[in-house]
């Protein structure tokens, strides 16, 4: 395609970017021993400086690892995560922050990864409640349940509010004990079968 033709076609255009919104995309996953949480936070170009001000405490125009970690903790403190009505305490795994210039262009995402331990209980239905209260003034949200890697856990339903700030995810959890019982039971049954056959043979 000739560049000249495209130049002729190009007219002044308003930006088609998300400029004054702070996109916060969360993904949650329930496992047998914990809940993992991923949050990708992307400030639009027009709100980037206000977000940077929250992170770059010393104002040196870079985000140090400790500043990123501190911000990650701020974000997590404003997340509500409950399993069956009980709070899940989140532990920060890591935070990755992009160069500030990319954030100022609306192209850089801060990635927060966290995990919460849960208490193992014999329940077939479990409900996870997630609510994101971080920076609500200019934010847009996504929250989704990841399909659990454990085939014994499945997502039954997800309900969210209109902005996706608040979500309730219902899971079905199959107890793990059948797979531990299966092989011993098969062994006992096989031994019993052999024993019965031998008993019958010797009786004849």
């Amino acid at each position, binding site marked *: 395609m000739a560049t000249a*033709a495209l130049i002729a076609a190009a007219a002044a*255009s308003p930006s088609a*970017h998300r400029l004054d919104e702070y996109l916060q995309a969360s*993904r949650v996953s329930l496992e047998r021993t914990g809940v993992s949480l991923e949050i990708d936070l992307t400030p639009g170009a027009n709100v980037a400086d206000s977000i940077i001000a929250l992170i770059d405490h010393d104002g040196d125009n870079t985000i140090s690892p400790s500043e990123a970690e501190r911000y990650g903790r701020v974000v997590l403190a404003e997340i509500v995560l409950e399993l069956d009505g009980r709070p899940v305490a989140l532990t920060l795994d890591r935070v990755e922050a992009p160069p500030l210039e990319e954030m100022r*262009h609306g*192209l850089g995402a801060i990635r927060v990864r966290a995990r919460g331990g849960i208490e193992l209980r014999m329940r077939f239905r479990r409900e996870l409640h997630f609510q994101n209260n971080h920076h609500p003034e200019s934010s847009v*949200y996504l929250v989704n349940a*990841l399909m659990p890697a454990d*085939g014994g856990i499945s997502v039954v339903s997800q309900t969210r509010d209109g902005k996706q700030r608040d979500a309730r995810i219902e899971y079905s959890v199959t107890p793990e004990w059948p797979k531990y019982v299966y092989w011993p039971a098969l062994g006992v049954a096989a031994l019993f*079968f052999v024993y019965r056959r031998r008993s019958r043979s010797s009786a004849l």
Partner: protein
Amino acid sequence: MSDRASKILLAVLLALGTIGVSTRQRTSTPLTTAPATGATARAVAAAEAFLATLDAGQRAKANVDFNEKTRTIWSNLPVGTTMQVGATERNGLRLGEMTPAQEKAALALVATTLSRDGYQKAMEVTDADEVLEVRSAPTRKPGAPIRFGRAFYYVAILGKPSTTDRWMLQYGGHHLAINVIFAGRDSVLTPTHTGAQPATYSVDGRTVRPLGDENDKAFALLNALNAEQQKQAILAFEVRNLVLGPGVDGKTIAPEGVRASTFTPAQRKMLMDVAHEWVGILGDEAATAKMKEIESGIADTYFAWAGPTTNGKGAYFRIHGPGVFIEYAPQGQGDNNIDHIHTIYRDPTNDYADRISKR
């Protein structure tokens, strides 16, 4: 326990072992493939022809290892930004670094791999970015690292082009990441990202909408659903971006929306037509096979929608089935949300041809 009862117990336990107990995950059956002829052989020849036009330094850039790290280096973002996977530079050699003969050979490789419509779509996305470059250049600060335009689209060959072993072709830049993985006679297009900004532009008086058919066919499908189907399809919340976009590899979300098992044959055909906008980017032979696979799982495929139901305004939609995951997400805000689109096409079971490679 009687002898008969013990036999029954043993049979039940063996049967359970065969099908797997409920807590065990289902495993997919690896595909069996024959040595490549046809499409893969043509792609190998085109790849070798492209590499033959390059000097040693260029070849080292254009042809890199195929491994779990390099294959994930692709993005919707423009050159000069850190990609979601942390890399700052795409794989390969960019068009702006090539001589006209080298560029011709590079694009011939892309054209050989894709369908005619798929190649046209890839070029229209590239041209849209050239329009963006023309628009943004006057206000760009000198030395600014973020760049748009055709010169910043890359062609990369990952691994050694082969008719038997796995290798990969990447073509992409801002708003485009065509990832084709070859594995013997099979080729796979997932994960692939398309986007457009501007989503509508004109060249020589002709209006071009690189992702216009995706949008229009989806609106037509939504409006072909009955009230009950629409109620299930339309999500009760806004969806402002891709959920499994670039950088979110290896994850699957719970399906939502209306299940296509409720669709009439005509509605199913419309759904397949929407999916074909992505699947059909790849060469016809592979696309036909993939469409059959998607059709075989259509009863377990979901269609979800968020946003306005009248064409002309931006709306998010998703197709999610056993072997397909497609999202279309307008990126802007307010009334100006239709001129910047992101999409993603994944296969929850076979991104990067991982299922095929397990054979």
